[in-house]
């Protein structure tokens, strides 16, 4: 099968370029396996991974234009093109730098609460359907950045600086459902562009954590925001230009 990989060493190359490789297809092949095969059988490729199971979020790439974790992206026995994750600085070939993306989510996702949590709080029952089962899926976000890479509201020039993006919004949603969080997560979501998302559903389509329901989460946050009359889109940071 033909695998096309985007290569780029910023220390040497003026621009990224692509190269074609020929490797045998194997049953249930993942994009990670294809990259590794090229690396071992053709020539060195810079790529990165750790968990092989969509939980470390380290291996995400674009496969035929769609973002996903390479380790769990099944590829067909046809030509595939693998490129670095869109929207991130390329370190080399398929390795990108997600530090700032991650730091921003970390900061948003810190719990907001004034009083210390007691063990009684930890043991207290939790509403299973409306809290636990809504919260549980969101925990599986690996911060892989696949949704971020595909989100039109993040990348469209007209809305670029108005929307935090789906991965960060999931973090806010998680704290919204967290029974121990007392922050005003609805205001936060609106401030971060809850209404700037165009509800296209692309994030749901590419997310490797299949249990996360992005659109359903946005809808819930929007309902709460509407009930509080917080229905404004976020404006661009510069009022001109």
């Amino acid at each position, binding site marked *: 099968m033909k695998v096309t990989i985007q290569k780029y060493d910023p220390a*040497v190359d003026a621009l990224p370029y692509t190269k074609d490789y020929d490797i045998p297809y194997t049953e249930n092949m993942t994009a990670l396996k294809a990259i590794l095969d090229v690396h071992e059988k053709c020539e*060195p490729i810079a790529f990165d991974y750790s968990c092989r199971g969509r939980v470390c979020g380290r291996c995400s790439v674009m496969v035929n234009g769609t973002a996903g974790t390479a380790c769990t992206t099944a590829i067909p026995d046809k030509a595939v093109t693998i490129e670095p994750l869109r929207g991130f600085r390329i370190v080399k070939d398929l390795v990108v730098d997600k530090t700032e993306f991650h730091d921003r989510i*970390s900061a948003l996702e810190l719990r907001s609460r004034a009083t210390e949590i007691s063990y009684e709080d930890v043991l207290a029952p939790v509403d299973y359907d409306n809290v636990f089962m809504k919260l549980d899926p969101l925990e599986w976000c690996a911060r892989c950045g696949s949704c971020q890479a595909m989100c039109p509201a993040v990348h469209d020039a007209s809305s670029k600086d108005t929307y935090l993006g789906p991965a960060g919004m999931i973090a806010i949603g998680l704290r919204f459902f967290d029974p121990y969080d007392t922050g005003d997560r609805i205001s936060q979501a609106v401030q971060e562009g809850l209404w700037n998302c165009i509800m296209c559903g692309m994030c749901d389509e590419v997310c490797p954590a299949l249990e996360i329901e992005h659109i359903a989460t946005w809808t819930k946050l929007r309902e709460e925001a509407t009930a509080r009359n917080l229905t404004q889109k976020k404006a661009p940071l510069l009022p001109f230009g």
Partner: protein
Amino acid sequence: MLKRDERCKASASQGVSRRQFLKAGGILTGAAMFIGAGLTACSNDSTSQSSGGTNTQANGKETLISYSVYDTDILIIGTGFGGIGAALEANAKGAKVLMVDKGPFEFSGAAGMNWDQEVTWPNTAPEGITKCSFNDVLANQKLVSNVHQFLGKDAEAWNAALWWVRMGNTTWNRLSNGNFENLISAGSDEGGVGAEAGGVNLVQRGFSRHIQDTLKTQPITIIDNTMITDIFLDNGKCVGAVGYQVQTGEYRVFRSKATIATAGACCQMYGWLDVHPIGMNTPDNTGDVDAAAYRHGVPLVSNEFFGVDLISVHPSSLGASFNAGIGADGNHMQFVCDKDGEFFMRETNAYDVSRPIRDRILAGKGGEHGGVFIDLTSPEALDRTKLRPCYLRNVYMWKEKFNIDVTQSGYRIPVSLECFEHGGAFVIDENCSSSIPGLFGTRGYGLVKGHITQQTFVGAFAGLKAYEYAQDNDVKKVDWTAAEAEISRIDEIRTREVSAGIRPFEIRHKIQNNFYDNWEPATDAAKLQKAIAELERIKKEDLPKQYVADKSATFNRDWKDAIENYNLIDMTEATLRSALMREESRLTFYRTDFPEQDDKNWHVNIYCKLNNGNMELSKSEQVLV
């Protein structure tokens, strides 16, 4: 976009004078990292000395090498649970703490994997050390007792479930009525916890990202994507560590008053399956710092012991991954079956589940893949109280992404024992100190397998001991020669030219297959001797021919693999030799020529020490209180 460590850098080295190393000015002294703030306060240490006039030879040509120096009170190698515990404790005491990790922070190590971790803790502060949750059969009882005292008698200090929530975790797993689910662990008799209390508390659904997020709120400097390749010794003392930034190739020297090495368990010798060894641990843990300490004369211990669990080995592209695979661990054995479909694990209540599984395989009841099976075709199997949620989610993922329906009648999932932890580590004493002053560790006290709570507790204790040591240890004036020699060593590995060379991954796979084929499902003297002979051959014939195909210093996998191979070989040799010496079977360690546990002769640790270029083994009595 700047990396977080570049932000903190006061100066970077540029032009270099000939025949010497250029040491860039002191980089930072425990600068705080503020999330969201663009720039971080950095202090420029203008007192840094110029380097000695060492030069390096590569390809017969003089090479000019520069490196950057980072200063701190406490250096912590590894941002996993051991590192987190150590960092929080040393930071709370007021020390300047710098953590360094090989991978991108929060994407690396077990703590950088976002799955529903199981967390254990005793109900109350245990009365005696045999009942505390980080004890183990061969553990140094003085260390365990010290950690016990450090934690104290307050039940809250031991309550890992509470600590996790306070560190940002949300709720632990819930039953469908909304109640807190506490799975009491089996096997409280064997060095486990709280026999009187009916076992150890065990909850599921810890997501360690929250803990690392909270760590980032502290004034602790985190330097990631930086691989430590050696500890830095001066006058017999550890004064830091040496390594390089894997994304840029920049050499880095960390100077510290005390160093805690907690760089995880080396499981990379455990075979090879498409994209990874048959082990769920992270590819970054290649025993680098353990092997470095070993090369400086610190013995390695517990090498022959692994923590093992069952995990699917098909589809092989998912690489024995915990998180894309379907498996069974101690509490979830009821769907494990042999090739005849017999659910043989339902009858056993063995604490160590690996033995009955291996016996089944040895009895010819395993599958062609060399392991056993999991059968999830009964509807009750898909209940999250019966199948661990992290496996259950993969039933759906396999169906959706790979069109594999494991619930289909007659389907059996091939599973094998994979290693998630390796005991092998450099030896530490009752104060977490190695035999090199200034070098502390969190693992080498004779434990057989590690877990999260244990690593956090022992890590925190190591943080305290390192802090105390740092109080009266001055490293203002150090001799940089040893650091420069190490930089020369790793530079030579990248630039080496050899005809008919062997790429590092080829050598890696030879080490892995040689080990695994002679280890699972059980080993014996003949297999071990064969494996040692082949390893010796790899060392003698292949390793000198190892070459890095891509000479670039920017994110170079071959280079990283090549450096790691030296460490992996030492760790593998220690494992095989210790196994050959230990003429018994114990817990997960299984020799068919000595199938019984022999407490009379073998209730001891085995130390592997480097002496005149040879690995020497000795028995070491368990340290008792």
